[in-house]
């Protein structure tokens, strides 16, 4: 029976590994937005990215977001969708909306004839993106690889394979550069500002 198989598969999962990866994923997904708290570590309702990851795992176990291994064999991908959906829900929540408008992930997705409100939002979004972008460029100054990586992001390139192709690196170098960026980024105010704005 399907339920028996799902249980068997769930019991075989390395939950420690998947929880760390999912928390890591939720942290960076949360960083994409400007939260009312001023910190991507403090989400509406007192939640943290860790909570988002653990809630997603709980939803799969309890069947609230049932996993269909035939349709979606990769459980981690299924969990990421749940985190995305829950973060999206938080963004749209009244609590978030009360104080701060949400910068869209893509700043060029404003309608062709934006009304004054949309224009204002786009302007705010652009200012925030520029602020974060400048902060990252300043952080990596002097590190040629990281500067190259920032240029890739500016060009809309973010897949390790595409970065490797664009830069002439191999994929493992792209992953090593990612580790370097982690270490630096952990000190950035946009990631760890703990409520300061």
């Amino acid at each position, binding site marked *: 029976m399907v339920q028996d198989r799902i*249980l068997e598969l769930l019991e075989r999962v390395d939950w420690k590994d998947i929880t760390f990866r999912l*928390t890591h994923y939720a942290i960076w997904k949360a960083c994409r937005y400007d939260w009312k708290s001023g910190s991507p570590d403090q989400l509406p309702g007192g939640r943290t990215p860790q909570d988002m990851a*653990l809630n997603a*795992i709980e939803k799969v*176990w309890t069947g609230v977001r049932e996993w269909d291994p035939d349709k979606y064999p990769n459980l981690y991908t299924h969990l990421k969708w749940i985190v995305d959906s829950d973060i999206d829900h938080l963004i749209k929540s009244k609590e978030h909306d009360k104080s701060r408008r949400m910068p869209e992930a893509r700043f060029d997705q404003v309608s062709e004839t934006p009304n004054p409100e949309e224009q204002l939002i786009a302007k705010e979004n652009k200012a925030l993106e520029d602020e974060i972008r400048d902060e990252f460029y300043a952080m990596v100054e002097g590190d040629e690889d990281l500067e190259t990586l920032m240029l890739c992001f500016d060009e*809309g390139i973010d897949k390790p394979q595409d970065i490797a192709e664009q830069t002439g690196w191999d994929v493992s170098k792209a992953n090593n550069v990612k580790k370097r960026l*982690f270490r630096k980024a952990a000190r950035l105010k946009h990631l760890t500002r703990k409520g300061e704005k």
Partner: protein
Amino acid sequence: MTKKGFIECLTDFMSDSEGLTQEEIATELEELGIDTAKLAAAADGIAKRGSAARRLAWRDRAKDRRAEIEELLKFKQIEIAALDLKDKAREILMGRYGQGAISYAEAYFRKRDSFSENDLESLIEDLEDLNLLEEEKDG
């Protein structure tokens, strides 16, 4: 297709943990002030509770299915000579050998209106071949 913005590229790139080991991710989480031992323990707790709840539901389902199969056996003719095999089949259906064996036997019985000794022997051989006749540990 619209070009992705800087932040979207940055966060998509950084959120992708492929190519990173568990230790590397743990180090990163710790640098961000996350207690990874506590996080792992919380996930373990969810998995244990979830597993227990699902197993309980599993037992309920198995109980219902056994009752259905008992009915099936009652209404289908089994030759007298096959009675000892019938007892073995009954043990399988009572769950002594776990869900895999029950599922297989259930499908087998449903396909037939009556059973000969050979039929029951063949079923038990199939289950043995499929390694489904190991006694259930916690069922």
